[in-house]
């Protein structure tokens, strides 16, 4: 197989509150012999909030990020669901609307850049599933996670709006019955747990303005996984991870029941199965301890 190579848009959390997500992404890429060129010039994507304030500015900044991937002539991979949403949504809107694209490019020209629309934007989860291949991952598994029940938590912005998902990625994902993360758990030798909240919202984006709503959503998700006998949860989204890993106290209070489960980043789960060490995967950076390894 030709070596896979992508432009990596890290997003902001990977550099701050979820260092383990960055570490495990790089560790998995090494194991799979995937080359990642980090887009160090990229700015924050606005995390679905900047556009509430200034839509045009948000488009310009996201188009600039994509323009850097285009310069490398590479597909951009994201490692955060919300980065994926914002970036792919920008691409969708500019590609569909030549007038808007021209306006954005007028601004980008001031710094010598151009958004062409030549680079695709995909989440790393789908890069390893669709491009690298589940079968090949399976072949490389050295420490199957066979003793674990693992609950997939998909995170909204990878699966909704499904139209955006389906136009960015090779394979469709059914937003009401998503399967990619389940398939990945199985490929890693684990037992995938089916539960109602797997495709629901964690509440991250209303954490500050509506803490109760956010806490109930987080609590319900962890409780749902617990009730189906999950030993741990796994998610492709660092924002979901922050919510599920660090906010268990408020979540428990909000739903009136003590809930807490170890939560792995999708990359950490794959890394463990491929034989990476806990240190390489940054397992010590979790608030809810990952103590079963």
């Amino acid at each position, binding site marked *: 197989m030709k070596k896979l190579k992508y432009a990596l848009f890290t997003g902001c959390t990977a550099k701050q509150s979820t260092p383990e997500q960055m570490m495990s992404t790089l560790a998995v890429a090494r194991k799979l012999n995937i080359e990642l060129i980090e887009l160090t010039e990229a700015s924050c994507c606005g995390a679905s909030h900047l556009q509430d*304030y200034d839509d045009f500015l948000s488009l310009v900044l996201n188009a600039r990020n994509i323009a850097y991937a285009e310069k490398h002539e590479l597909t951009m991979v994201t490692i955060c669901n919300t980065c994926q949403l914002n970036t792919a949504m920008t691409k969708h809107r500019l590609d569909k609307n030549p007038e808007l694209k021209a306006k954005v490019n007028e601004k980008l020209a001031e710094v010598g850049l151009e958004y062409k629309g030549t680079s695709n934007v995909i989440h790393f989860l789908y890069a390893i599933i669709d491009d690298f291949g589940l079968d090949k991952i399976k072949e490389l598994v050295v420490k199957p996670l066979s003793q674990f029940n693992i609950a997939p938590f998909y995170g909204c912005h990878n699966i909704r709006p499904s139209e955006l998902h389906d136009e960015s990625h090779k394979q469709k994902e059914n937003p009401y019955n998503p399967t990619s993360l389940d398939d990945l758990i199985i490929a890693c030798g684990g037992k995938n747990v089916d539960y109602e909240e797997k495709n629901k919202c964690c509440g991250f984006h*209303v954490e500050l303005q509506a803490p109760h709503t956010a806490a109930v959503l987080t609590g319900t998700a962890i409780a749902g996984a617990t009730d189906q006998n999950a030993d741990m949860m796994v998610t492709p989204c660092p924002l979901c991870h922050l919510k599920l890993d660090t906010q268990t106290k408020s979540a428990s209070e909000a739903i009136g029941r003590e809930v807490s489960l170890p939560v792995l980043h999708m990359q950490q789960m794959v890394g463990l199965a491929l034989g990476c060490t806990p240190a390489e995967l940054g397992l010590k950076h979790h608030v809810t301890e990952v103590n079963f390894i």
Partner: protein
Amino acid sequence: MSTNSITTQKVNFKVFRFNADEDYLPYYENYTMDITSEEVVLDVLNRIKWDHDGSFSYRRSCRHGICGACAIKVNGRSTLACKESMTTMIEYFGNEITLEPLSTKRAVKDMIIDKADFWDKHASVTPYLVADIDECPSCENLVSPHDAEELNEADLCIQCGACHYACPVVEINSDFFGPAAFVAAYRFESDVRDSDGNRLINVNEEKQGVWDCAKCFECAEVCPKDINPIDKITKLHQMAFKKGVAKNNVATRHAVGFLHSIKKHGMLDEGGLVLYSEGAHIVKHIPVALQMFKKGKIVMPWNMPKSDKLDEIQKLIKSSSTVKF
């Protein structure tokens, strides 16, 4: 379509049954039927009533996706029964199909729910044109095609409630107006003839308003008219800033805070954003922040990473900003 392309398959239905007048608790009835590739969900409801149990109750009227009466939940997904084909449902969920009302806790009889909360919220957003229009005009009140486009199809809403009862926030925060009410608010707020001064303020209030939306995109996914309610919610946010009615509160500071942070670092300064948004209320985040700090999850201000070519980002912010707060 030629008739020989019609296929048939067996489907097991688990159907929610409840009569508020007689039953203490709801129960599920099972029916197995041969479903053809041409049937829509409403055909199944009709067949249950006609072939199995005449007392089975559901709402429908137009059968053309116009009246908005027939929305129910299929395997938990809000669905307009007369529009959604069974083939798609089987593709989504396989041959075990559960039919429930939009909201089981509001069930009155079988698929029929009490939609009072939906209509109350709809009524709260002034869902009509407030305008000083001459009752006997000498010529028509013309709206240019360009201005009409501003409605972004919000006028196509049929008030089916599919989005409202798919919204997780509606279930948790009973004050939250919900996606359909916001669509209605946007429909009139974006109408050039409208001159209401309170609607936008009203839908920007905390708890009930647009800032409490969790951005989960459930509403966009379910809407049978492709209205994309969260897109309208985003536009209401933007209007609040543009028209100067955005209040200085944690939600608006959170949105604006991104700009400040990007200007300074290119990246988001997570701690700085929370501090800027919360102000003195930052103290409530300290216990979690301490735990995170112990685990190496908090970057100190002097170590904040910066994007390369920050000057480019700053230049673009200067030239491309369209809003002031």
